[in-house]
């Protein structure tokens, strides 16, 4: 602050990792890792200086502070700041930190998952399973007087399988889950459940037909399909893109951007969810935020810098992958509020279309709003009933247009099992998504077969 900066912040992190991997019927490796360091951020007007180091000695820290302060050009004076500990709610209370759970117990989960996947069907030829957990301790203190500490545990059990059918046809299946949960979570969300679901997907896809290219009515299964929402609208509502005018949602606050049936929420306070936070990485409390209400754009997601530059309040959305990164506005758990239709009614309402049961990943260009959404398990819908499995289905659209075409929303809200990781500007953070069964009309389905002949 002796250079006259407006704001300075210290972020300290210590993150312990454990992983177990299994392939080809053998536990391949057990791993431990430790990452620790400090990030110093100085803000002067709209200018940000950042320095980080994994050396925690005093000399390294002062050097980092001077580097971060390079951007400030005024005269100030060295001063001390009183910080007060912020009382925090707890959205994830664990019996024990995951770093303290015996590795052998974690190993047993992947061994059980492998066994269950192989036992599911003889056509399952390859199985790989992995366990990954981390226990991250963070401390944030800033010259605005805030001091916050949090311990954030996170884990995920995953299984990936390859099934082989006739004539060497191969199908993959994958499933997994976890979150900020106690290890005992896997007593009910068992490795067998995870493995069988991965295996079921792969077997179900054997003999799948080519998807027809072009516009169709699609029905999305509940849960993990919330990734559509994450891509189609979520990113475009992050305040950095709004402030810079690079998102197609910039300047549309209060406007109609989706069908009346669409209410989108980002909620960092869901119990034990993968994207939940007691505090964000700037020390601010996570919040429940309504982003779109009955189709009307209600608000954006702010970190403290963008909030200040835009005369708004932070929404507790400032997140960073680690001390090696600057915080920026990010999603936490993003979901669509339930509607009134039963899933059966929604399916019955479609004469011809595609049912999207499971999803790979997605990506969005927040500027033109184009998003894609890879469907790993799909079926044709004929006269309100599920038909043949389809392969190679990709959905593509422009965010607001797709949301305007939402014609039915199910009464079956469902969070994903806890397997999402979101990437932005090279930073990965854990997120949750959720969706009830959803019908979208006129969605472009990518495929290899050009239809219209029948």
């Amino acid at each position, binding site marked *: 602050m002796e250079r006259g900066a407006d704001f300075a912040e210290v972020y300290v992190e210590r993150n312990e990792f454990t992983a177990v991997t299994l392939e080809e019927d053998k536990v391949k*490796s057990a791993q431990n890792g*430790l990452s*620790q360091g400090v990030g110093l951020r100085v803000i002067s007007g709209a200018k940000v200086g950042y320095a980080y180091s994994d050396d925690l000695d005093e000399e390294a820290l002062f050097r980092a502070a001077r580097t971060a302060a390079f951007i400030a050009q005024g005269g100030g004076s060295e001063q001390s700041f009183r910080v007060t500990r912020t009382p925090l709610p707890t959205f994830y209370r664990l019996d024990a930190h995951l770093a303290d759970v015996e590795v052998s117990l974690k190993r047993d989960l992947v061994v059980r998952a492998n066994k269950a996947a192989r036992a599911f069907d003889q056509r399952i030829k*390859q199985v790989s399973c992995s366990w990954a957990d981390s226990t991250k301790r963070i401390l944030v203190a800033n010259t605005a007087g805030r001091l916050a500490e949090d311990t954030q545990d996170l884990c995920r059990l995953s299984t990936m399988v390859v099934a082989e059918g006739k004539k060497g046809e*191969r199908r993959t299946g994958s499933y997994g889950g976890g979150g900020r949960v106690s290890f005992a979570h896997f007593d009910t969300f068992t490795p067998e459940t995870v493995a069988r679901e991965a295996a079921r997907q792969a077997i179900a896809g054997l003999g799948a037909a080519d998807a027809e290219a072009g516009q169709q009515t699609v029905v999305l299964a509940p849960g993990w399909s919330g990734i559509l929402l994450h891509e189609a609208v979520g990113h475009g509502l992050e305040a950095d893109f709004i402030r810079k005018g690079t998102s197609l949602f910039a300047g549309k606050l209060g406007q109609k951007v989706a069908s009346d049936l669409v209410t989108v929420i980002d909620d960092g306070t869901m119990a034990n969810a993968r994207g939940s936070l007691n505090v964000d990485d700037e020390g601010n409390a996570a919040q429940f935020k309504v982003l779109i209400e009955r189709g009307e754009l209600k608000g954006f997601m702010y970190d403290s810098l963008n909030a200040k530059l835009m005369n708004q309040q932070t929404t507790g959305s400032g997140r960073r992958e680690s001390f090696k990164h600057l915080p920026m506005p990010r999603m936490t758990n993003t979901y669509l509020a339930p509607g009134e239709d039963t899933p059966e009614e929604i399916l019955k309402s479609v004469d011809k279309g595609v049912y999207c049961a499971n999803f790979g990943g997605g990506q969005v260009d927040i500027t*033109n709003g*184009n998003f*894609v959404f890879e469907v790993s398990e799909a079926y044709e819908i004929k006269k309100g009933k599920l038909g043949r499995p389809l392969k*190679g289905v990709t959905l*593509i659209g422009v965010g607001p247009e797709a949301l305007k075409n939402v014609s039915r929303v199910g009464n079956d809200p469902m969070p994903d099992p806890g397997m999402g990781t979101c990437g932005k500007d090279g930073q990965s953070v854990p997120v949750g998504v959720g969706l009830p069964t959803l019908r979208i009309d006129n969605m472009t389905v990518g495929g290899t077969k050009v239809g219209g002949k029948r």
Partner: protein
Amino acid sequence: MSATNYEALAKKIMARALKRGAKQAEVFLQVGRNADVRVRDGEIEDLTQATSKGLGLRVFVKNRLGFVWTSDFDPAGLDTLIDRAIALAEMSAPNPLNGLPDLAAFGKLPDVGALYDAEVASLPPDWKIKASIEMEKVIRAFDPRIKTIDSVGAGESVSEIYLASSSGMHGSSQGTSVYLYASPVATDGEQLQTSYWYDAKRFFEDLDTPENVAAKAAHRAVRLLGAKKVKSQKCPIVLDPTMAAGFISSIAGAANGDAVFKKSSFLAAKLGQRIAPAHVSIIDDGLRPRGLATSPFDGEGVPTRRTSIIDHGVLKAFLYDAFTARKAKTKTTGNASRGYRSLPSISAHNLLLEPGTLTPEQIIKDIPNGFYVTAMLGHGANTVTGEYSRGANGLWIENGELTRPVQEVTVAGNLNDMLLQLDAVGNDLTFHGATGAPTIRFKELTVSGE
């Protein structure tokens, strides 16, 4: 800590692991520093500077693998870490194929030339700020429809690697990189479009100018304004060099020896077969002079080399690390890739598609109706099944000319079929990062739109 100290530290930890009961041990240590600046409206938007370090210790105890990594070099912590690695090995299954590379795999390291540029290592912070401001000016002046910029910036990094392996291999390597990037946003009042361009090189004198990087980025964004869907159809598809690089990365992913061994690659059964026209040659060149991914040795100390994956249309080789090579009863190709936080895994070094003789204009000229792709969305390629489907933006081709912009469509095919359909390769080899490709054309793929 100086270079000699890091080297000594790596050796010390390796030796101590052997003493504590490891049959084999290996330390991979990385040290680096980096700096990055972004500007907005002629001023610094953010400036980041950092130093980082870390080491990974791999041990084999009774054919079982244990792995630990840390960024904390405190001696007491490191000591506990060694014991942990050995304890962790107990958790994994014994596998006689486990272990460091066989002695025969090591040997004389290739002369890869200089990878370190003293000029990059000593660039003043001012350079990044000036270069970025210059890019911003060029972008603003390029076209009045460019109203904002997502980001524009520059940076450099210096990295050092030390490897100490109980097999007797010790090595170190130093390298630099320097880069410029820009992503402007254009608007016509109705639609927003963005694009990006960047250049990254090991040597400052090889780096493209800020003007060129900025102008390319601006040109690529502006020409997409007014983009619309097209009708679903089958037609010729041209990928510009940046998109072609993505395609050959997918092919190299399918040439991963581990995926091949597990029959989880569409290329698994095709070694020695013709899988593409004769003008298709894909090479992984670990020795490419000044290449961003060039290094004298791989992540387990094996000398790097040049591996021809597809030679004149024939599938010649897969990529291996030591463990996978042992499983597949073949030799490592020096493709163990890693950072200190991860175990070695197979990946290409500098990957390239050999250029052909046609200019990009000649490739487009023959097309009465087709799609020139300049941006793609999604991961898209499934290297297990060969299915390929990605979101695509670009320009429609009519009568051999680039005409109207296109968005919100997908391009789909099957990688097997796409390789066979790859009917033209351009002479405009462009390296973007460590992967290089020229313009390429597929005879016919499916476009999904209206």
